[in-house]
C-alpha cells in the first residue's frame, strides 16, 4: 500500500513540473490546411495556426495520433469542416485533449459548415446507402465560393472568442474575400470549357467543384460512399460510362491509383489526379493555388482530349 501511495504522489508531483511554454498568440488548430490558410489570413499576426492534416490524407482516414491530443489541449479555437467530415478522428481527439474550450458546443468549437450552402443532404438515412453524412456532403473545400462562406465563419468564430480583436478579423476577412472574389471571377471564366463535362470520381467529393464549374457528376468508383468497389460494380460502372460518354475519371490522390486508371482506360475517359486539400501536391501551397491547380489540371485534361 505504501508503495502505491508513494508512486501516486511521485506521478502527481512530477507532472505539473513540465508546463508547456507560454505564448501570447491565439492558438488556432484546424482540421485541414485549407482552413489553416484562411485562418492565417484572417487572424494575421494575432494567431498561431496549426493543422492536424497535412493535405495529403483522406479526410475520412486521418491517423488518430495521440500527439494531436496534446496539440488540441493547447488550442484556443478549433476550426473544422464539419458535416461529420472528421468523424474518424476528431471526436475522439477532442475528448482525449481534455480542453473544455474546444469541446463540441463550446465557443472555441467553430464548425465552418454552418455558414455554407450544403449540397447532397440525404433524404433517407440508411447504412445500405453507404457511409452517409446525415447533414450533407462535407467536401465543400473544393469550391471557392463555399470556402468564402467558410471564411466568414472563421472570422465570426475568432471574433466570438476574442471580441477585442473583432475589428481586425473583420478587416482581414474583407481584404481576403475581395482577393478571393477576383480569383473566383477569373476561375469562372476559365472554367467555361468544363461546362457539361461528365465526371466519375473515386469518392463523392467533387460535387461542390462540379456544381461551381458546371460539370456533371456521373458516379463513383466506390460502390457507395466509403464502401470499397466490387468487381461487379466496376463492370456496371464502365458499361454505363461508355453509354453516357463520360469525359473524365478523377482519382483523388489519397485513393489507390490502379483501379481509377483501369476504369479510365476501359472507357476512354481521361484520367485526372487531383489533391483534395491544400498541401495535397507541392503546387497547392495555399487555398488560391490549390483551386488554381485543380482547375488547370481539369482544363488540361478536357482541352487535351
Amino acid at each position, binding site marked *: 500500500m505504501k508503495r502505491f501511495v508513494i508512486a501516486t504522489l511521485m506521478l502527481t508531483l512530477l507532472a505539473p513540473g513540465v508546463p508547456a511554454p507560454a505564448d501570447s498568440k491565439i492558438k488556432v488548430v484546424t482540421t485541414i490546411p485549407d482552413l489553416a490558410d484562411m485562418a492565417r489570413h484572417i487572424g494575421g499576426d494575432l494567431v498561431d495556426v496549426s493543422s492536424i492534416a*497535412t493535405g495529403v*490524407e483522406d479526410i475520412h482516414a486521418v491517423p488518430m495520433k495521440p500527439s494531436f491530443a496534446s496539440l488540441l489541449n493547447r488550442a484556443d479555437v478549433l476550426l473544422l469542416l464539419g458535416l461529420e467530415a472528421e*468523424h474518424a*478522428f476528431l471526436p475522439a481527439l477532442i475528448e482525449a485533449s481534455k480542453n473544455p474550450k474546444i469541446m463540441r458546443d463550446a465557443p472555441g468549437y467553430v464548425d465552418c459548415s454552418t455558414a455554407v450552402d450544403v449540397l447532397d443532404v440525404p433524404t433517407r438515412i440508411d447504412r445500405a446507402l453507404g457511409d452517409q453524412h446525415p447533414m450533407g456532403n462535407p467536401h465543400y473545400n473544393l469550391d471557392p465560393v463555399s470556402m468564402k462562406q467558410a471564411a466568414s465563419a472563421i472570422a465570426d468564430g475568432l471574433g466570438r472568442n476574442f471580441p477585442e480583436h473583432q475589428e481586425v478579423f473583420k478587416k482581414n476577412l474583407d481584404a481576403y474575400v475581395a482577393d478571393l472574389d477576383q480569383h473566383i471571377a477569373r476561375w469562372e471564366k476559365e472554367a467555361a470549357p468544363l461546362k457539361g463535362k461528365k465526371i466519375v470520381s473515386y469518392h463523392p467529393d467533387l460535387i461542390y467543384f462540379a456544381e461551381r464549374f458546371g460539370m456533371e457528376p456521373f458516379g463513383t468508383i466506390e460502390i457507395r460512399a*466509403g464502401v470499397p468497389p466490387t468487381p461487379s460494380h466496376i463492370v456496371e460502372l464502365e458499361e454505363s460510362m461508355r453509354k453516357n460518354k463520360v469525359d473524365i475519371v478523377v482519382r483523388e490522390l489519397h485513393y489507390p491509383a490502379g483501379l481509377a486508371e483501369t476504369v479510365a482506360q476501359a472507357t476512354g475517359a481521361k484520367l485526372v489526379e487531383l489533391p483534395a486539400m491544400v498541401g495535397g501536391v507541392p503546387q497547392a501551397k495555399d487555398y488560391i493555388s490549390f483551386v488554381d491547380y485543380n482547375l488547370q489540371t481539369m482544363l488540361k485534361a478536357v482541352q487535351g482530349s
Partner: protein
Amino acid sequence: MGRGARRATTAIILLALGAGSLPRGVRAQSDDLRRELEAMRKQLREMQEQIKKQQELIDKLSAQQKAPPAPSTAQAPTKTAEEKAADEERLRREITASIMRRVQPQLAAANKTFPSQFNPAIGLIIDTVGSYGSKTRGDFQFRAAELGLSASVDPFARGYAIITGSQDSFDVEEAAIVTTSLPYNLTVKGGRFFADFGRLSKFHDHDLPFVNRPIVLDRYVGGESQSDGVEVNYLVPMKQYLTLTGGWYNKMGADNDRVDNTVSRDLSQFTYLGRAATFFSLNDANSVDLGGSWAYTPEVKIDNGAMRNLVGVDLTYRYSPLAQASYRGLVWGTELLYNQEDRPVGGFPTTAAMAAATSLERGLGVPSMTTQTRSSPFALTDAPLTDPKPLVFKRRDATGLYTYLEARLSQRYYPGFLFDYAQDIDHVVGPTYAYSPYFTVWLSEFQRLRLQYTRLEQPGLHENEFFLQWTVVLGSHVHGFRDR
C-alpha cells in the same frame, strides 16, 4: 413591407428556425420526426401566406389613410404623424399576437416529441464465431450482441453503457460516468469500465485485431480489464504526449473470480492501478506508442492474504503512410506481462475452479483444461476443497506475452500473425505457446469477416483450431481513442 410586419415575419422565421434547428442539432433519424417536421413546415408556409395577406391588408389600410381626404364641408379631425404611427404599430401588434396564438399550439405539440431527441446514441454489435478443433471439435458460438448507449449527462459529464448478451448470460460490461469539464487536464471516470491496464485488455472482444484474446491477458488479467471503481486520468500539459492514470477498483478482470466483486472489503483488498503512456512520432508515417501499467492488490484473500503485483509493458509500432492511410499500413503490437503472487503449491484443488476454468476457456475459444493436471488461476474463494489438508502457499512469478504483426494491403484485406506465450501462474505445468495466422476482410467499415488458424502447444494438449468470425455494427459507431 412595413416595419411591424417585418417584425412579425422575423418572429415567424425565428420560430421556424428555432423549431428547425433543434432536430438538426440532434440529427433527425426517425421517419416520424421527419413527417412531423414536414407538417411543421407546411404550417409555417400557411402562416407565411397569412402574413402576406395581412400585409396586403395593412398596405391597403395605410394607402387609404395616406389618400387625400375627400372634399367635405365638415372638417374631419386629422391625425398627427405620431398618432398614425401608433395606430399602425397597434395594428401590427394585434396581427402578430393573432399569428402567435395560432402558431403556439403547433410548436407546443412539436415540443412534446423533443424529449425523445435527448435519447442516447445507440449501437448494436453482433459478433459470431464458428470454430473447429482437431480434438475439441467445433460449434457455432453466438459470442455477443453488444448494445452500446452513450450521451452527455449535462455540461459536466457524459455517460455510456455497454450491455452484452452472450450464449448463456446477459451482462453489463461497462456503465460509466466520465467528467468532461474538470480543470487541470483531469478526467474522472466512475462506475464499471475497462481499467486502463495495457492496450488490448481495454478492447472489447469484437474490437480485437484477431479472433481470441491473447492467452496471457486471459490468464493474468482475467480477460477484459473490467473493473468497478474509479479512475483519474491526467494529460500532462506539454508538447510531448504523456498521460498518467491512477485507478482504484474492487478487482480487475471480467473473468477474474478470485476476488468477489460484491462484498465489502478493507482498503488493503482493493486493486490499485498506475499507468503512464506516451507516443513518439518518428516521422509522418512511423510512430510508436509506449505504455507501462502496474496493478497492485495489497492483500488477496484467496492467496493467503498475500499481495499481488501485475505489471505490463505495451509497445505498438505503426507504419501509416499519410496519403495511403486508408489502404496501406502495418501495425506491430506487443505486450509483456509479469504476474507475482502467492499461490498454493500444486494449485487450487477445487472442482468448482475446474468448472469455472472450463466455462471460461470455452467462452474465450481456449481449449478445455479438464484434461490437465493443473487448476485454473481463476479459482473461487468459496469453492469446496476436495483436499482437507491446509494449503501451502509459495511466491510465484509468471511471465507471458503476445506479439502480433498486421498488414493493411488494401481497404479490405488485413492479414496478420499472432504469437502467444504464457507461463502457468501456479508453475504446475510448462508454458503454453500459440501461433495464429489470420486474415481479415472488411466488407465495409461496419462489416467484417475473419479467418484464423491457431496451433496451440499446451502441456498435454496439442491442437489445431480453425475460426471464422463474422462481426457487424448497427447504428451508432464511434471511433474511440482507446481502441486505436
